[in-house]
């Protein structure tokens, strides 16, 4: 995961993940809470409707009970019932019914036989008379009974008609009934806003919902008192069945039940609105959070990026004058990054100053050494030239002598020229011109060029697998000549005078080794052999090996010296097979910068 290794990515990812997580959790919790609250409020409304229905029914029952008691207590009714004469009772009952405005009035005698009926279906009288509540009333107790009627549930209040205080004599019973019909349900709906249905024995008898939906609702009547759901006309309703009590225990599933229906659709609409709003909020918040995370990550890493860029430039160009410039108005940028940037700027300043001072010192010392070498190298020829001129000034100089002096002067001028050339060679930037070169052939040429002067013979051990190398043959030859001449000088005057040149191929490189059996180099001097102006030879400029190293390194190779005093020295040059891609080094850096 390379992407994750970036600080910016990690900060961004962590912040964004945190944002998404916290917003997600918050939205989820809110959503869950809102949903639960909505459901709770629906259940509360249903429960409150159920209470209202119960209360309303209880109030009405109470009213009718009061009225029934009052009527049953009327002496006229008692006297009429005592006659046991239906027409007499009917007359009296008609009067009361007119005032009661009830759906049913029923009077029985003390044996429970019907004396008068007003309202209800033709068979109602007999059905009512057989009710337990009538029998209870004959025992002196009031009772409530619920009867199914075609247009609703008839709620009956039955009271005894009795006379006497100490030993009451029960003359008969009076039942007053009112219908829990569509109109009653409608009244309740106006009060509560919930739909109501009354049913009994698995059949819906009155309701506020359309007639067509009754079938669906009747299935819910036997469900006991557990809340459920029903779908009517593409609308979802929460349903709570409540049993309508009469004070008498009834077998489960057959008793009168009121169904309270509350539409969920409104609730769902409200919920879906809330959910949509929450979702939009979440998306916006996450987008903003992500953007913010990105910005925060950038404020930390932008200065770092700027610092890195400048550092890289400094590293590649070596230009210490480059500075890290942070935006002046970036007050949101990281303080640590700013500190880092300013520290880096100070560091480069210090390094640049130290480098300047160092190069100044080096220049001065180089100049001093060069001056000494040049003065020394130039004075000797000058002295010889001066002596030659002195000879020429003598009168009657023999022509042979003039020729000899001219030759001397010529030689010394050549030497002076060589000194100047060496200095220039070392100081001038080297440009390479690479081409395919047969390295072994080049080595032989170099060896024969170096053997132009008398001295030791060079033994060549060429590896044929070296073959053609892409390099600057001219420069390499001068470097090799220099090394071979040094080796021949080293063996000059020694007992064994052997100089060897070996070429070897090693992987993608070629190794050229020049060995001698000379005096060797002192251990103390060995590290300095490639330094400019270091020389142990009289008449040497100390620039031969430095120039050689410049060339070899310019061709992308390396040069090392190994030596054992008294036994000999070995110079090993390692070169790439193709030097065109090698970076060119500028030798003048060592001298002039």
């Amino acid at each position, binding site marked *: 995961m390379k992407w994750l290794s970036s600080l910016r990515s990690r900060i961004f990812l962590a912040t964004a993940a945190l944002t998404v997580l916290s917003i997600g959790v918050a939205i989820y919790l809110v959503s869950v809470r809102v949903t639960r609250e909505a459901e709770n409020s629906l259940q509360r409304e249903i429960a409150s409707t159920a209470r209202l229905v119960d209360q309303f029914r209880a109030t009405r029952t109470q009213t009718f009970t009061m009225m029934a008691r009052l009527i049953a207590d009327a002496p006229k009714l008692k006297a009429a019932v005592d*006659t*046991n004469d239906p027409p007499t009772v009917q007359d009296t009952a008609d009067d009361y019914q007119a005032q009661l405005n009830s759906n049913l009035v029923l009077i029985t005698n003390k044996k429970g036989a019907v004396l008068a009926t007003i309202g209800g279906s033709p068979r109602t009288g007999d059905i009512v008379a057989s009710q337990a509540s009538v029998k209870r009333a004959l025992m002196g107790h009031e009772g409530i009974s619920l009867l199914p009627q075609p247009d609703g549930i008839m709620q009956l209040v039955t009271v005894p008609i009795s006379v006497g205080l100490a030993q009451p004599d029960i003359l008969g019973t009076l039942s007053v009934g009112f219908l829990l019909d569509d109109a009653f349900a409608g009244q309740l709906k106006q009060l509560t806003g919930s739909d109501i249905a009354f049913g009994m024995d698995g059949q819906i008898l009155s309701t506020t919902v359309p007639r067509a939906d009754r079938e669906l609702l009747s299935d819910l009547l036997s469900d006991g008192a557990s809340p459920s759901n029903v779908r009517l006309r593409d609308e979802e309703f929460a349903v709570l069945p409540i049993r309508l009590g009469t004070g008498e225990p009834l077998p489960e599933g057959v008793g009168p039940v009121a169904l309270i229906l509350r539409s969920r659709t409104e609730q769902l609409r409200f919920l879906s609105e809330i959910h949509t709003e929450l979702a939009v909020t979440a998306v916006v918040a996450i987008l903003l959070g992500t953007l913010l995370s990105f910005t925060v990550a950038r404020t930390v890493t932008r200065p770092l990026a700027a610092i890195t860029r400048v550092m890289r430039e400094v590293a590649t160009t070596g230009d210490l004058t480059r500075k890290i410039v942070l935006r002046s108005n970036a007050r949101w940028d990281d303080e640590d990054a700013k500190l880092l940037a300013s520290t880096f700027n100070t560091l480069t300043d210090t390094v640049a100053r130290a480098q300047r001072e160092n190069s100044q010192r080096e220049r001065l010392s180089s100049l001093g050494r060069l001056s000494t070498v040049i003065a020394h190298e130039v004075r000797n020829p000058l002295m010889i030239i001066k002596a030659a001129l002195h000879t020429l000034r003598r009168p009657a100089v023999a022509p042979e002598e003039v020729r000899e002096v001219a030759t001397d002067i010529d030689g010394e001028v050549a030497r002076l020229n060589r000194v100047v050339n060496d200095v220039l060679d070392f100081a001038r930037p080297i440009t390479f011109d690479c081409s395919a070169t047969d390295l072994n052939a080049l080595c032989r040429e170099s060896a024969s060029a170096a053997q132009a002067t008398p001295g030791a013979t060079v033994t060549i051990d060429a590896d044929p697998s070296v073959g053609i190398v892409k390099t600057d043959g001219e420069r390499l030859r001068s470097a090799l000549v220099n090394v071979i001449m040094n080796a021949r000088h080293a063996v000059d005057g020694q007992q064994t005078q052997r100089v060897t040149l070996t070429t070897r191929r090693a992987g993608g490189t070629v190794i050229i080794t020049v060995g001698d059996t000379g005096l060797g180099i002192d251990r103390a001097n060995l590290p300095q052999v490639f330094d400019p102006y270091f020389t142990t030879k009289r008449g040497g400029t100390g620039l031969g090996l430095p120039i050689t190293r410049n060339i070899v390194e310019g061709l992308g190779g390396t040069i090392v010296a190994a030596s054992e005093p008294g036994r000999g020295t070995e110079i090993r040059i390692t070169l790439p097979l193709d030097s065109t891609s090698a970076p060119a080094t500028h030798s003048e850096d060592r001298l002039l910068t």
Partner: protein
Amino acid sequence: MQTWFPFRRALLAVLVLAAILPGYRPVDAARNGAIAGHVELRRPPVAVGRRPGVTDLGTPTVQPMAEPQMSVVYLEVAPRGAFEQTDTTRAIMDQRNETFVPHVLAITTGTTVDFPNSDHIYHNVFSLSKTRPFDLGRYAVGRSKSIRFDRPGIVRVFCDIHSHMSAFILVFSHPFFAVTDPAGRYRIDNVPPGTYTLVAWNEGVTSESRQVLVSDAGVTEADFSLR
């Protein structure tokens, strides 16, 4: 026809059949016997929820008196000549403490019953009974109204001001009846010897009729149990 209770039918039968029964001799007190006995009431007491009464409207509380319930024992079929009594008599049904006193009054036909108001409030006496429907209207304390009962039967009277007040007037066409004392005992005197059908009545409930043999100057025991 449920409108006629069995005991009423029986009573009517007394009145009709008695007139045509053969073998009746003029009453001879010296040879006549008596029927005595006890009527036991086994009816469970009925408790009815207390209703708001006139007493709740600020008047002093009337403690309902747990009066012993009087029963009436009578001959279902009376001996001939029993109906020849024509002397007009009077009886009194008082109204005291929002109660008719006595609660059960047994009279012979032709009796005029006075309903004096001995209470401290207005009262009314009315009946919707087939035997003798009447309404004496409301009248003040100290006044009395009366009504004569010429047909045998049972008349239940009410007060249209006080819903808890009621009383029974049993009108017989013969004198062979007796109202029990508080202990439930009764005694019908001066019954000519013979076999009779005896019936006990209490608050609209009649017992099974039973045959009794009345001998000369003897007391025949007959106990009843009413549910």
